[in-house]
């Protein structure tokens, strides 16, 4: 199957056209945020404060890279397990978040939120951090630098490989595919 090239920020039209099972190559800016950064973002929202960035149309990557060697852009940078962000995802979808990249299942609150706000969930290959790093062309800290590997970072990516696992209609590859191989 041909891989679909998409660019960030994502529009509603692009999101609606993506279907569970599509293999995509993402180009543009994506933003890393994992456990600690999500806690801070949600705390800021709860306190009625400004977020350090505008999430409208953006894609968040659940990842905490290993350090870059001198002269390199980034170390290994594969996805972390997404369910830990489930309870902290809805507020970002409400702020316009259109895509999430991670690994592993999401709960129903997230999936219903994705359907309501038209967002898509991609899986990157867990444990392929060295391979994925090849598609990352720049790496800058946006906020929460004190969190080290958990800082909110902007990554400029070219042809970042991912698979649409849950689309904006709620179709879920984690439910449909394993059933085919269950004996």
């Amino acid at each position: 199957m041909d891989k679909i090239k998409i660019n960030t920020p994502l529009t509603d039209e692009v999101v609606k056209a993506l279907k569970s099972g599509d293999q995509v190559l993402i180009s543009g800016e994506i933003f890393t945020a994992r456990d600690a950064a999500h806690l801070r973002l949600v705390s800021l929202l709860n306190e009625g404060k400004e977020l350090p960035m505008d999430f409208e149309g953006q894609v968040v990557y659940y990842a905490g890279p290993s350090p870059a060697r001198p002269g390199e852009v980034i170390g290994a940078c594969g996805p972390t397990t997404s369910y830990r962000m489930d309870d902290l995802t809805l507020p970002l979808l409400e702020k316009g978040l259109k895509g999430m990249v991670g690994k592993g299942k999401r709960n129903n609150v997230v999936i219903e939120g994705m359907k309501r706000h038209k967002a898509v969930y991609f899986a990157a290959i867990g444990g392929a951090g060295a391979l994925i790093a090849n598609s990352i062309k720049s790496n800058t800290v946006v906020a929460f630098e004190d969190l080290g590997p958990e800082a909110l970072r902007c990554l400029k990516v070219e042809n970042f490989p991912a698979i649409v696992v849950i689309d904006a209609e709620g179709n879920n590859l984690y439910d449909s595919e394993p059933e085919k191989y269950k004996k």
Partner: protein
Amino acid sequence: MRSINVIDITQKVKDVCITINYEIDPLVRAAFESAKIVEASKIGLNIIDDLIENSEIAKSYKAPICQDTGMIVAFVKLGQEVHIEGGSLEKAIHQGIREGYDEGYLRKSVVSDPLLRSNSGDNTPGVIYYEIAEGDVFEIELAAKGFGSENMSRSKMLKPSDGIEGVKAFVIETVEQAGSNPCPPIVVGVGIGGTLDKAAYIAKKALLRPLGSHHKDEHIEQLELELLDKINKLGIGPQGLGGTTTALAVHADTFPTHIAGLPVVVNINCHASRHQKVVL
């Protein structure tokens, strides 16, 4: 009495921390190749190919296989006729971890307090276990344990009447619940017996056996084979996106237990399965 200097211990620990993060275990690579022959899912096959390519990139560019470069777990086997000279053994191990994670550009993933959660900045402390042995042996088995898989591990105090069928059911249920989260294809460590903590200890230690090797007792070997077969029929597949390669191996171990109990721990490792033994 044989003397070992702490400087040599630090150096070895440092080297192994770096090596296990950059270079995939040849047995894992061989297991990927075997999986490619039998994997029924096209997506699954592509994922295994990507994992092989990833390991080649990691080795040639001296980059970590995975960004979660783990928390170090060390099993020290110290002969009672060995004298450690030049300082503290424990400090020497921690210094090796510190230097390895710094010089190897490995991610520092340890927080100093589980509730306050500030990063210790140098990936210490590791989790260190000591075993006193006869003679003048000195070995440290080091694992870089990632937490995508550690988080999917479980324990249960079964009843004696639950027996081997209860153990099998708990292992299968644990792998099924873990699904895509622990980065399948996984390695499954099963500890049966002892106490709650002993079962966890032998499950973790079983993960460090050569991949796909079997327990010396025939009934445990049979259990390992049966569990591997059942797990690979769950359909989870590589990365949980469907397929017939959910686990690369099941390693089980047992320990005598109490008449009232049957503790079981399932400790899961991801496909990177990073560990190596240091012998001095």
